[in-house]
Every structure is written in C-alpha cells, then in structure tokens.
C-alpha cells in the first residue's frame, strides 16, 4: 500500500498541475492578506488588532478547500481522460487499493498545498502587522485552531475530490457538477426544503464549519466529522463503481 501511495505522489509531482495550483494558492494567499491589511481601519472596517491575526492568515481557507477538491478531481478523472487508468489497473489489478492509495495521496496533497500557503500568509501577516506597530505572535491562541481547521478541510476536500472523480469519471462533468452543487443546488435545496436549520448538514456547509465557523454552521468538530463522513461515503460509492465498471 505504501508503494501505491508513493506512486500516486510521484504521479502528482511529475506533472506541472500540482506546482501551478500550489503557486497560485500561495500568490492568492499573499494577495488576500495584503487586501485585508490595506482595507483595515478604512470605510468602516475594523482596525488591525492582535486578535485579527487568525482571520488574516486563514482568509484563503475556502479557496484552499477548493484547490484540494480540484486536485482530487483532476487526479482521479485525469486517469480516465488520458487513459492512464488502463496501465494503473494492469499494474495493480486490485482496484480498491488503487482508489485507497489515491484517497491518501490527495488528502496529503491538499494538506501540503494548505501548509505552504498558510506558512506564507502567517509570515507575511505577522511581519506586516508588527511593522505597523500591532504586536502579534504566532503563539497567539485562536491561530492554531484556525490553521488546524483549514488543514483538515483541505485534506478532506482532496479525499472528496477523488471520491467524486471515481463516481463521475468525466473530468468536465465532475468539475462542473461540484461547482454547480456548491453554488446553486445547496441553496436551491434550502429554499425548497424551507428549513434553514437543515442547511448546515449539507456538504459544503459542513466544510465551511471547519474554515469559517459562524452561528449558522455546525461546531468545528461536528462539521469536520460530518464532512469526513461525506468524503468517506463518496469514496466508498465511487470505489464500488470503479471496481465494477469495464475499462475499455
């Protein structure tokens, strides 16, 4: 199993996609910090204070979840798109193990991109705030929880991406499907059900509980567990599909 996870990670490292996504996320992270620092104290925004650090650092959290989801979907559907799944299954006929290795590899990939991005935003945010005379320290309480939640969400999103990819196989359909689900369908479901209290149980709301804790969401732990359960469900169903379908 270790060698399969290693093979998946080498697959990821030997194409440009991963570096592109990582670089884009780091750049996006620096931009969000810069925008928030510049906007602070103006036009009704709260001025910078010691407790604004976690919010600054974790501003790209939702985007990081999206990036991990993207990597997972592309990692799984790319095998079908480029027909590399044939060689993958010839090498490892036990398809369940292939998907399991991908789940582990892309959870890790999501976390790696998040670690890189958060490391850079943390350094930029603390040094910028200190330069502006707002004394902050990375040891401040609150920061750890935000970082942990963001990393967990990114890892789980990588896993969900692989599960969705295994289920849908078609790259464009999987990407569009996930986007439409998060942006349109969850909202539509909410208004149809006419029960706002149910909304927090839907997948992207559960993920948001990890990255943007607020009153409307579940608690961090409940949201994390629920989202992990969604990820596992997608993966199990997706794996079953992958095992049964012919590779032609």
């Amino acid at each position: 199993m270790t060698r399969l996870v290693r093979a998946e990670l080498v697959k990821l490292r030997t194409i440009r996609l991963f570096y592109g996504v990582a670089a884009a996320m780091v750049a996006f992270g620096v931009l969000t910090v810069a925008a928030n620092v510049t906007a602070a104290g103006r036009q009704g925004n709260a001025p910078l204070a010691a407790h604004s650090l976690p919010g600054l650092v974790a501003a790209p959290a939702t985007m990081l979840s999206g990036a991990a989801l993207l990597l997972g979907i592309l990692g799984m559907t790319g095998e079908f798109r480029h027909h590399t799944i044939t060689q993958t299954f010839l090498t490892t006929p036990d398809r369940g193990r292939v998907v399991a290795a991908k789940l582990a590899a892309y959870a890790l990939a999501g976390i790696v991109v998040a670690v890189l991005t958060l490391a850079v935003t943390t350094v930029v945010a603390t040094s910028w705030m200190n330069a502006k005379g707002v004394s902050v320290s990375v040891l401040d309480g609150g920061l750890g929880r935000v970082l942990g939640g963001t990393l967990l969400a990114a890892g789980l999103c990588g896993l969900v991406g692989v599960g969705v990819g295994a289920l849908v196989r078609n790259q464009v359909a999987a990407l569009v499907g996930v986007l439409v689900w998060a942006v349109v369908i969850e909202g539509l479901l909410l208004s149809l059900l006419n029960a706002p209290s149910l909304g927090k149980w839907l997948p992207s709301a559960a993920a948001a509980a990890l990255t943007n804790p607020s009153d409307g969401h579940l608690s961090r732990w409940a949201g994390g567990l629920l989202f992990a359960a969604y990820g596992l469900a997608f993966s199990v169903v997706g794996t079953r599909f992958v095992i049964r379908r012919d590779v032609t």
Partner: protein
Amino acid sequence: MAVITIDGLTKRFGDVIAVDGLSFEVDQGMVTGFLGPNGAGKTTTLRMLLGLVTPTAGTARIQGRPYRELAAPLRHVGAVLESSSFHPGRTARNHLRVVSIAAGLPRARADEVLAQVGLDQAADRRVGGFSLGMRQRLALATALLGDPEVLVLDEPANGLDPEGIHWLRGFLRHLADQGRTVLVSSHVLAEVAQTVDQVVIIAHGRLVTQSTLAALSARTEQAVRVRTPDAEALRPLLVAEGIQADLAGPDQIVAIGTTTETVGQAAAAAGIVIYEMGAERSNLEEVFLELTGPQGGTS
C-alpha cells in the same frame, strides 16, 4: 503447456455480443497472431484476458490464473493496449518510474527498457510531444518493465510508418527468440505473417480457425489466368470439367484449383485461341479475407 487459456469467453455490451463463446490456447514460447477484421472482438478479448473488462461468461487465464489474481502481474505479463495511454505532461522516464514504483520494480529498470526500445535520447521529454511511433515504443518499454515471460500486444503496428513496422517486426522476433510467449493482435495478416508461429483467427466474436502459419499457407490456391477472345465459350468447357472458372473481364478467365496444362488442353480441343496464360497463387491475405469475410467461418 498452455500459458494463455481462453475458455468459452463471452462479452455482451447491451444488445451487442462482442465476443461469443471464444476458446483457444497459446502454448509457452509460441508467437501467436490474433487476427480478425476491425470489430471482430480482438480488443475486448485481450481486455478480458487482462482483467480490465469483466466477461459475461467464460474464463480467460494466464499461467492458470485470472489476471486479477496474479500476485505481481507485471513480472508475468507485459501488455501494450493503446498507444495514447500516457499523461501528455509527464516525461517518458517519469512515466516508467511511476509504473515501477507501483509494481515494486527496481528503479534502474526504467532506463534499461528505454535503451531496449531505443528511446534513451528522449527519456526526459514530455510524452505530449512524442510521435505515434515513439509512443508505441514507450508502450512496449512499459510492457517490458517487469521482464515478463508473456507479452500481450493489441495492434502494436497501428499507425506506424513502414520503418516503424520494420523495427517492430525485428523487435517481436527478438522477444520471441528469448523464449517469451507473445500474443499479438492485428487486422492485417501481412503485418505479423513474418513473425508468428501460429494464428488464431476470429470474426464476429467467434473463432474461425486456429492453425500454424504453415497450415494456413497450404490453403492458398493455385489459379490460372487466361486471356482469350472466346472467354464466353471457354468458361462453360472448364466448368463442365468441374473447375471453378470465373470471367475476370471480357477476354479473361480465372480458373481456380487447376493447372495451365488442363486449361490449355481444354482450349485446344475446342479450337479456342489463347493469347496469354499464367499460373498464379492466391496469397495469405486472400485466404484471411476469405476466412473472415461475410461468408467466412465455414472452415
């Protein structure tokens, strides 16, 4: 000993029966041509043999086991299925590295097989920029990674230029000389005729014949082509002698399964002038076409 055993193999896609109760065996060390027109079910058969497609009925075994039950499949079986199954952004060496890692093969194998197929100069180039011939070589290199004793190749000559086909023939011969068992599919008999020991011919998903190449050659027929102004008059005379004779033009007859002597005597007896006459032998390709054609399967 049979290395590959196909037994009653059947695959149905919806209403279409792609493979229909196919059975044949391939013995150790044999190079077998797996022949049939496009759509005969060759690819589906090979994909079932390799565990990629689940049969509707029947079994396909390699060394007595279904492919999916082989503990280290790449060490036993190397396969070339389609030339485009690479990520375009990955280099040739990295592609082979990924497969070696997943298969638990030594790191050095990637460079060894690249040299074997003559791709060492292109090892660090992205596959997206490869020509079809180079992709085919890389596919062969991938098949050889585990140094397998069995090779399964699906239309490896497809899309290759004449030079590539020449190279491929030599390479297959070289692999066969090392005692490997090779099953190579093609829709053109001539492509593999120089390389194979035996042929398995299928059409419409069913076995047409399995025979040695020598036995297939024996089925080629002697024909006599005659040019005469009285073709209309000569033809019934030949037919009366039990010879299959067909008009091949206003002044030409092709008589099958006979000799120039017989035709000449028949013409002389009737006082028919002959301008030109010659013996021809139908080639293997014609035998193949006849076997797999619309009236095929009558052997």
